C-alpha cells in the first residue's frame, strides 16, 4: 500500500520536539505496534545495519521498558525509561534516557493517538530537560549520533583501503 502520511517535525517552544504522522490503520493496531515488544522490534530498528535484540516492555504505570540496538559491527546502543501514564488506546507518557546520552538530563515522551475514518494520527511530543538538550538532539539524531559515526568511519576506511 502507498505510504499515506508524511512525517511532520517541529521544534516547539524551548524544550520540545513534536512529530506528527498519519497511519492507515485503526488506533488499536497502532497502539499495539507502539507497546507490544514483538511488534515494536519489527519496526523500531534504527538505520540500516541495526537490529533490536532487546525490547522489554513492562506495560503498566510505574513499569519500565528497555531497548537495545546492535549494529552488525558489534556496536550497541541502549535506552529505557518508566511509564508514567497509560490510556489504552490513546495516550502513553514515559520517561526516556539513553545509556550514553549525548544530551543532558532525562526526557519525557508523550504519544497521542487519534482515529478518524480508519486512519490514525500519531503525535509524539518529547520534552527535554533544557533547551540545550533539545537542540543537541536535533543536531545529532540517532542516525548521525554515536552510532552512525562508526558507520561513516567504516565507509571511510573501506574507501581508503580500496
Amino acid at each position, binding site marked *: 500500500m502507498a*505510504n499515506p502520511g508524511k512525517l511532520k*517535525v517541529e521544534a516547539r517552544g524551548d524544550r520540545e520536539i513534536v512529530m506528527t504522522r498519519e*497511519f492507515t490503520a485503526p488506533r488499536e493496531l497502532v497502539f499495539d505496534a507502539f507497546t507490544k515488544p514483538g511488534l515494536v522490534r519489527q519496526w523500531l530498528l534504527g538505520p540500516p545495519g541495526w537490529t533490536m535484540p532487546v525490547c522489554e516492555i513492562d506495560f503498566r504505570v510505574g513499569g519500565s521498558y528497555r531497548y537495545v540496538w546492535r549494529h552488525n559491527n558489534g556496536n550497541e546502543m541502549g535506552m529505557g525509561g518508566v511509564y508514567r501514564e497509560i490510556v489504552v488506546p490513546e495516550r502513553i507518557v514515559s520517561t526516556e534516557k539513553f545509556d550514553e546520552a549525548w544530551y543532558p538530563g532525562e526526557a519525557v515522551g508523550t504519544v497521542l493517538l487519534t482515529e478518524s475514518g480508519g486512519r490514525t494520527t500519531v503525535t509524539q511530543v518529547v520534552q527535554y530537560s533544557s533547551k540545550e538538550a533539545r537542540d543537541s538532539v536535533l543536531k545529532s539524531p540517532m542516525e548521525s549520533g554515536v552510532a552512525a559515526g562508526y558507520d561513516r568511519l567504516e565507509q571511510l576506511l573501506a574507501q581508503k583501503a580500496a
Partner: protein
Amino acid sequence: MELHGYTQTVGSLDATFAALADPTRRAILARLAEGDASVSELAEPFAMSQPAISKHLKVLERAGLISRAREAQRRPRRLEAAPLAEASQWIETYRQFWEGQFQRLDALLDQLKSAPKKQARAKRRAHALHTHIERRTH
C-alpha cells in the same frame, strides 16, 4: 558581519529556534521572503504598534535571520536564508530518520490488518473443505 551594505548578526541554533517559535515573527519572515521591507511596511498587516514590531525585528536580527540596510533612509530589512536553512536541515535529518522507522511501521500495520482477514478466509476454506469431505463420506 557586513555584506552588500546589510548589517548581519551570526545567530546560534538556540536563537534561531527561539525566534521561529513566535507566529508574528514567522509571518514577518514570510513577508520578507517576498522582498525587502521597511519597519512600517512590516507593521502594516499586524494590529501592532511599530515599537512592538521593532522588538520582534530585534529578536530576528539577533538570530541572524534578517539584516538591515545601512545606507537607505527607510533601512529596509532583508531575509537571511542561511541560518534558516541550517535549522531546517537539522530538523530534516531528524525527520528522515523517523520517516524511515515509520515506513517500516506502515508495512507492519498493513500486515496486521490483512492477517485477521487471511485467517478468516483460511477458516472458511477449511470449513468448506470439511463440509465437502463430510458430504462425500456420508
